[in-house]
């Protein structure tokens, strides 16, 4: 297994990338402006792309260079570009419907990380991996998931919800690369494309939302209840 015998430099780079991604997730959580979300998301994707390349180098998985290129291109450039186009066309610059102030959301996010850390310690401890980068990867993976959920829950702008979902999947992607680098490559590629389809679908749906519901806020979606 890769993470069990890793040289210190690789382990530090892994940790750095994982933590940087987590910090960027917090940047998204603490911001009101949709454009800032988007830049943070793109930066996060680049971190993950670098991570892929590093995993490929140290783990001797040459196919990970391909994953790195695809990640950088799709998640770092193409997806943000698609979302950016939607933002421009819709003319929504900022989140105005949040349930939770960004500052309070940050505090809740911090609790999410603590919870993730506890779970990761427990699992890592039972596997005899305490103190390795595996625990950190699991923590970041779980906390990015929770932060993604938090963003979905407290934000109502359709685009924030899409970005929340993307953060969620970024977390899984990041964790998967460190924990299970051997997981067959084609699945990762398919998931990349799958994400692209998701965003395309969302784009179409957002258009419909504007045309038929007259708003992109999910607060307006209240016809179907009970």
């Amino acid at each position, binding site marked *: 297994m890769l993470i069990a015998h890793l040289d210190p430099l690789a382990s530090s780079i892994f940790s750095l990338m994982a933590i940087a991604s987590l910090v960027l997730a917090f940047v998204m959580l603490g911001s009101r402006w949709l454009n800032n979300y988007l830049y943070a998301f793109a930066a996060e994707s680049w971190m993950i792309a670098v991570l892929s390349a590093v995993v490929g180098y140290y783990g001797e998985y040459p196919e990970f260079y391909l994953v790195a290129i695809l990640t950088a291109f799709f998640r770092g450039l193409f997806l943000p570009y698609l979302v950016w186009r939607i933002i421009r066309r819709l003319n929504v610059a900022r989140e105005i419907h949040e349930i939770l102030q960004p500052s309070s959301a940050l505090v809740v996010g911090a609790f999410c990380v603590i919870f993730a850390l506890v779970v990761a310690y427990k699992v890592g401890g039972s*596997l005899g991996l305490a103190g390795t980068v595996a625990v950190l990867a699991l923590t970041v993976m779980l906390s990015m998931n929770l932060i993604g959920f938090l963003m979905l829950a407290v934000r109502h702008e359709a685009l924030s919800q899409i970005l929340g979902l993307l953060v969620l999947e970024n977390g899984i992607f990041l964790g998967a690369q460190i924990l299970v*680098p051997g997981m067959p490559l084609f*699945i990762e590629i398919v*998931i990349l494309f799958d994400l692209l389809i998701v965003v395309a*679908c969302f784009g179409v749906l957002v258009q419909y939302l504007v045309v038929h519901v007259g708003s992109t806020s999910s607060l307006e979606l209240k016809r179907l209840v009970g």
Partner: protein
Amino acid sequence: MTGALLLAMMTAPAAAALACIVVRRPRVVELINLIASAICFGCAVPLAALSASGPYHYWDGYIVLDMPGSWVLLCSAIVYFLASIYSVGYMRLLGEDEKLWNFYTLFAVFALTVLLSAVMNNAGLYWIVIELTTLVSTFLVCFERVAESIEAAWKYIIVVSTGISLALLGTVLFYWAGSLVLGPTYDMTWDALRGAAPSMNAPLATLSFLLVLVGYGTKVGLAPMHTWLPDAHSESPAPISAMLSGALLNGAMLGIFRYLTIADAAGIGGLARTTLVAFGVFSLLIGALFIVRQSGIKRLMAYSSIEHMGVVALGLGFGGLLGIAGALYHMLNHSLNKSLMFFGAGNVMRSFGTKDISGIRGVADKFPVQGALWLAGAVAITGAPPFGLFLSELVILRAGLHQSYIWAVLAMLVLLIVIFIGFLNHFRAMYFNDGPDDMAQPRQLTAWCVAPMWLALMPLLVLGVWWPAGMWDHFMAIATTMSGAKP
């Protein structure tokens, strides 16, 4: 033989989708889709029988035809066939002829993804196929392009994609747990996972299983992850509601079943089962509460789907021979019955021009034949004899008593009775209450809309009085090979 049948079954909807894009003439695309669904149904029946001598692996082991898979395949193919017949009549009522090719293309692709999900042998690919079913069906849900259906589609894709991403997380963690046993790279087939399960780390396997359960549970519509289901099922065109409810939910339930057998092998079966039973009871509770106070006719059916998925979850959770047999039998019965109910709901909705139960009155007088069929279906779906669901629910109750889940059995009994009363009370109102005098005369329906109701009700009646021996053997084989239950 099985390979050829399976290939024919998957090619038919794929070819139909392509043909629909090319041809685009409304009457022709109807026919193309109908033929494809008939081929699927024709292949599914022998496949279910042939799978007993399997499992058969194809394409380097990425595709598997095993007994539970072939069973779900059969259920889905039946619903696809019935829904295709019905959609010929129903979609003509909508008067959207120019968009019809669009509908049938998506319909065929949706059917393809649902069918594929039953034969995926790789846990990762299974996840991808389930995600694809969501993406395709989203556009079917919002086919009518009114504000309500767009809202339903949005909620559907957001809630289900989020839920299913938890299943992805669970899948990755399962791969990790497996990689500590099998080495860093291996094919993540169900058999490989089950083989590695006894040496898996228990806390990690538990975490993975719970994530997978919540993830696929979202897709199955287990409460409290069910919130997308009533919206999507009530706003999509009626044939699609039937597909979502009768075919798609089973496809996702199959994943839960497969992971449950892995959890059993990993020695965490007790916790896994209790969680599933708890979800099942909670689904029944939510179903009961919302059925009693429901005002929309298709939402009524949707909550009934949540209820029945709860029953299937209870059957799988109880486990043992009876539990698994009851759950699988219930899947088939529910597929038939819920198709019937959605067809009937679509019919009255179109002929009375409203989705509200309060706007539908005097069905018994206005539609003697179709009304009688629908009423029989309503009696059946509440679990009354002599229909199939009575039998399967009884078997599941017995399984619960065997496995000493007394609390769950009691809750299930009480809630089923509440649902029986609540559900049929709505039907009493629709059938025997007189509407206002100025009510418009309902539109008459073609045979396309009524024939599939007959086709769904008859087998339901037969299955209620006669449990074919071959079917029982099939269930026994599944229970003994997959989860090691002792006869």
